[in-house]
């Protein structure tokens, strides 16, 4: 397999995980950016454990997930009842704080970065096994009692309260889940690029994920799945002079999508329509 394809596929998997992490909390009506900071935490934990202490991949992954959970749990306790925008900005602040702390951690390489991180065998397969498991979990979660509760909270918080949904704890656990997802993405990222620099885990990364999620559609988990490879992939195919403008293209796509198709390209209704027409197609074929 060409090395560029390998990188593209693993990155896509990592971004899908991050996209889902933002998505799952946003389904609950809150735009939470902790996954990016948790990604840094997970990446550095995994890198340190595998390089310095020679841990194998799986225990390092589990340790990173634990780290991500703890890392997101503490602020989640405070942010669970924060109004929407406060949470958004506070968690962006968290990205910056994490970066600053990492820059000043000499034993983690500081600004110069943490080098020669060992890579797990079959990273591509590992990545997509994880994506599949996480995807299945979210798929089931959305069809569970919790998923329906989230749906209600997204539409109207006060109605949710009257239905005795504990919006506070629902929010806290979703944030922790998102933190764990972020940490997993971080572990995969560390294994892929093998050099960690605090600058990686920045606003730029967050904006990419926003673009994949809001252009793809934030009302279903499939928006991220379909549009991450498309939006991440097409600049790679463009001539370099155009591909350089990737950020501007992403920015324009975000603006245009929010103005013309506020729910994103893939909406619930669209999925429904596709389902119906596929069914109709098969029924017609059977008839003829």
């Amino acid at each position, binding site marked *: 397999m060409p090395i560029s394809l390998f990188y593209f596929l693993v990155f896509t998997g990592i971004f899908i995980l991050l996209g889902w992490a933002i998505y799952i909390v946003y389904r609950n009506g809150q735009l939470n950016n902790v996954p990016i900071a948790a990604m840094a935490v997970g990446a550095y934990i995994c890198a340190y454990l595998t390089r310095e202490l020679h841990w194998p991949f799986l225990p390092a992954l589990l340790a990173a997930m634990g780290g991500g959970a703890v890392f997101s749990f503490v602020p989640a306790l405070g942010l669970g009842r924060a109004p929407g925008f*406060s949470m958004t900005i506070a968690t962006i602040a968290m990205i910056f704080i994490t970066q600053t702390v990492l820059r000043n951690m000499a034993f983690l390489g500081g600004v110069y970065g943490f080098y020669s991180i060992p890579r797990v065998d079959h990273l591509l397969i590992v990545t997509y096994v994880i994506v599949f498991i996480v995807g299945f979990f979210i798929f089931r979660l959305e069809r569970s009692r919790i998923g329906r509760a989230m749906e209600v909270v997204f539409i109207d918080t006060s109605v949710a309260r009257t239905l005795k949904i504990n919006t506070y704890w629902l929010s806290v656990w979703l944030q922790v889940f998102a933190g764990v997802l972020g940490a997993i993405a971080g572990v995969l990222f560390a294994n892929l690029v093998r050099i960690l620099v605090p600058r990686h885990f920045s606003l730029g990364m967050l904006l990419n994920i926003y673009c994949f999620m809001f252009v793809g559609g934030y009302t279903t988990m499939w928006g991220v799945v379909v549009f991450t490879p498309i939006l991440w992939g097409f600049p790679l195919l463009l001539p370099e002079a155009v591909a350089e403008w990737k950020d501007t293209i992403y920015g324009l796509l*975000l*603006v245009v999508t929010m103005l013309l198709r506020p729910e994103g390209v893939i909406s619930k209704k669209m999925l429904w329509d596709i389902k119906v027409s596929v069914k109709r197609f098969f029924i017609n074929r059977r008839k003829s």
Partner: protein
Amino acid sequence: MEFLLAQIINGLILGGIYALLVTGFNLLLLEGGVFQYAYPHLLVLSMYVSWLVLRVTGNNIFLGILAAVLSGIVLGIATEPIFRSLSKRGAAVASFIVALGIAIIITDILSRVINKGIQIAFPESLKGEKALLQFGYAIISAGQMLTILGSFVAVGGIFFILFKTKTGRAMRAMAQVPGVARLIGLPVNAMSLYSYMLAGILGGISSVFLIMALGSASSGLGNTLALKVLAVAIFAGLGNLGGGLVSALILGMAESFVMGYMRGDWANAVAFGMIMIIVMVRPRGIFGMKA
């Protein structure tokens, strides 16, 4: 003692600039329900426009300042149509995302096109570094004095308009009871445009002060400023105009002292740490949110 005084002056300058920006930001939030993350980016764009004009006119300071303020107004008004439909739908999150998109575009363009993406530097003559007052080693330069006084006057002017004129009262009514404002015949569309214009004026003025205070600008400045401004707004409680001023001064001072006594790297982290704590302890800000 002199060191302390220098930090206080710096704090006042930062606080003054934040006060201008947070007032403009809150105005847009109150009048149209728009979460204009890209507001500071527009201001940075104004700094670049001013720099270009300075280069073309051979450092004509008057034209440079005029360009900064005018472009602030023009850019402010130009963004109104983009947000209009969102503001009518009451789509606050969508407005934030659109603003993010605009911010990405501005940052990207500044980092590639103007001056090949290299940080721009303003002529020394614009900084007004002539010492005006001197206390031992602490010097208040003409530029610093102008910035402090200017931001007080500009903010004072906006508050006068909002609280002492008919138009300002109509704008506040629109913020407090948006549905009713239209029913009783206030020209809501014109007023919304007016709020973008006022925010644009504030942005233009603060771009001049930032030019004097920093002497340079780079493409990343927009994001840094945006987070500071949002931090101030959330610290006070979103949409709280008066609280925003107090918070701007508190945060300006805090930042100045952290920069004075700790390594520069930590200044932003401390500011953001304060935000985290405030949001967690008092989610609606210290002075409370306004609808």
